[in-house]
């Protein structure tokens, strides 16, 4: 991602040039090279394969329509990811969309040592995307690209054409909401267990205690202010 290597840059530029010239074989080459990666990214953003064909198609239409502006400043993969993100954003914010259809992976075969882990992931995904459906689309995209698709913050900011600060804020806000949900949701909490274990239960308790204390202080402050106002009025 980001700045392409010279050889890759050359290949990307040649392929893009041929695509711009309308060479169908080049367009097919690019499509075949990238389609599964695009599908995986879109799947992690959208949470299911529901209507994903339309979004994939829209992504590649955007790619082929916009390649004329490709200058090779970033890799072709990043360029394609930008188109995928725009298509996903349009889909997430469209009126046609009615929640996430959670037709996730088939059940793992019994006896598989990783079965429990995968079953947890599957169930957690249902809970996670149910929560992500409530989050603003840009926050959701930033969060899924960073936390689920494995992009760095810098890469996400490049893909979303946003500043690093804005991207960090989007990821942070989405994470706050997911973590808040996880505190009440055993499945989601179990899925996020690795992190909480790393932090340590003590740290978690302290953090929670601090938050509750802060909230209480604020509430006390508000109550105090209201009481003062009431006293003044009397």
């Amino acid at each position, binding site marked *: 991602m980001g700045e392409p290597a*010279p050889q890759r*840059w*050359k290949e990307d*530029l*040649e392929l*893009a*040039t*041929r695509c*711009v*010239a*309308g*060479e*169908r074989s080049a*367009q*097919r080459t690019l*499509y075949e090279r990238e*389609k599964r990666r695009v*599908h*995986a990214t879109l*799947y*992690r953003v959208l949470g*299911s*394969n529901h209507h*994903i*064909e339309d979004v*994939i*198609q829209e992504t*590649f*239409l955007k790619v*082929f*329509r916009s390649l*004329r502006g*490709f*200058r*090779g400043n970033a890799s072709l993969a990043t360029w394609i990811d930008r188109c995928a993100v725009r298509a996903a954003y349009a889909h997430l914010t469209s009126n046609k969309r009615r929640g996430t259809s959670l*037709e*996730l*992976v*088939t059940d793992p075969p019994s006896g598989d040592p990783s079965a429990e*882990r*995968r079953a*947890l*992931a*599957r169930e*957690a*995904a249902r809970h*996670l995307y149910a929560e992500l459906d409530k989050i603003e689309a840009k926050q959701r995209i930033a969060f899924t690209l960073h*936390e*689920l698709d*494995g992009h760095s913050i810098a890469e996400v900011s490049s893909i979303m054409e946003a500043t690093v600060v804005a991207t960090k804020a989007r990821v942070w806000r989405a*994470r706050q909401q997911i973590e808040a949900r996880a505190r009440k949701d055993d499945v989601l909490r179990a*899925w*996020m*267990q*690795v*992190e909480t274990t*790393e932090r340590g239960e003590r740290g978690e308790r302290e953090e929670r205690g601090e938050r509750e204390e802060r909230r209480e202080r604020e509430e006390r402050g508000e109550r105090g202010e209201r009481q003062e106002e009431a006293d003044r009025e009397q």
Partner: protein
Amino acid sequence: MSSERPKIPVEPLSDARWAKVDDALFTALDAEAGAPAPVAVPRAPSRHLVIGAASVLALAAAVLLFVVFRGAGPARNDVVLNPSHIETGATPSRLAVGESTIEVAPASAVVASGDDAHGILVVVETGQVDCEVTPRKDRPPFVVQAGNVRVRVVGTRFVVARDGGDVHVRVAHGAVEVSRGADVIMLHDGDSWPSATSATSATSATSAPSATSATSAPAVTAPAATDDDAAATPSVPAAPTAPIVNAPSTSLPATAARDGKDAQRLYEAAARVETSDPDGAMASYRKLASGGGPWAPPALFAAGRLAADRGRAAEAKRLLDDYVTRYPRGANVDDARRILARIR
């Protein structure tokens, strides 16, 4: 959050669903390619639209004035961006691509991309380009593609013209190699392709051994001699730089002379069987390389390149080092150095 957390599983799309995406996408692209220019739907103009339209009209007028007053004067000079689509009207356009220049003839459309550091590709959609390419030296090659015809050059001046499926190449000076499908043709000063007598062979005035006809995969061509090389040894052929695939398998001549037509035949036969009989091809290249004569340099390079393609790094290094030492101004010296760098 941690990377050790179980990954969200991605449910793969079935082949049928992928086929649906494929069909829909390329049908849409076909429709866009064949669709007429969109027609504006009449609607009540807003204040912003009126202002915008006025700006566009002013800009169009400025462009029109520029075109009119430029008249039939000298072609303008543009610097190519990556990639740039250039369409000419009644007047030609001259482009600077790195240190090389491309003159795009009137009523032509080309896409040019790249620079001297990364190589240059010019795709001729229609019309004609007149390319003046400075010797590439250590720089990546300059390639012109017109339909399924590919012209790769190290340093020369040539013209590529395309009218639908018909492509014509004419070399003013220097040498280029033209490939279409499995046919690879070497063109030298004054040559044109296709010739009046044959649609697939070069019209080289000096036949032996200037025409290299090693078969090659589509879009895989050999670099041609530089201007310097062409002047010094105008008949020295260049060897293919990439593995030769899908070539028809033919048996090698049992006995072949080292010079003249027999050497050329032996070289061509070796090129054809690189994939089906690499050992035989290698033996022929070595035989030609050891004997001297005009086919020795390309044969030595081809042997080194073939060894590299087969993963025999030590052998490739020895052969290509030998090539660079023996023929420091050889037609394939840049490619040899690139392969050596890759091996190292």
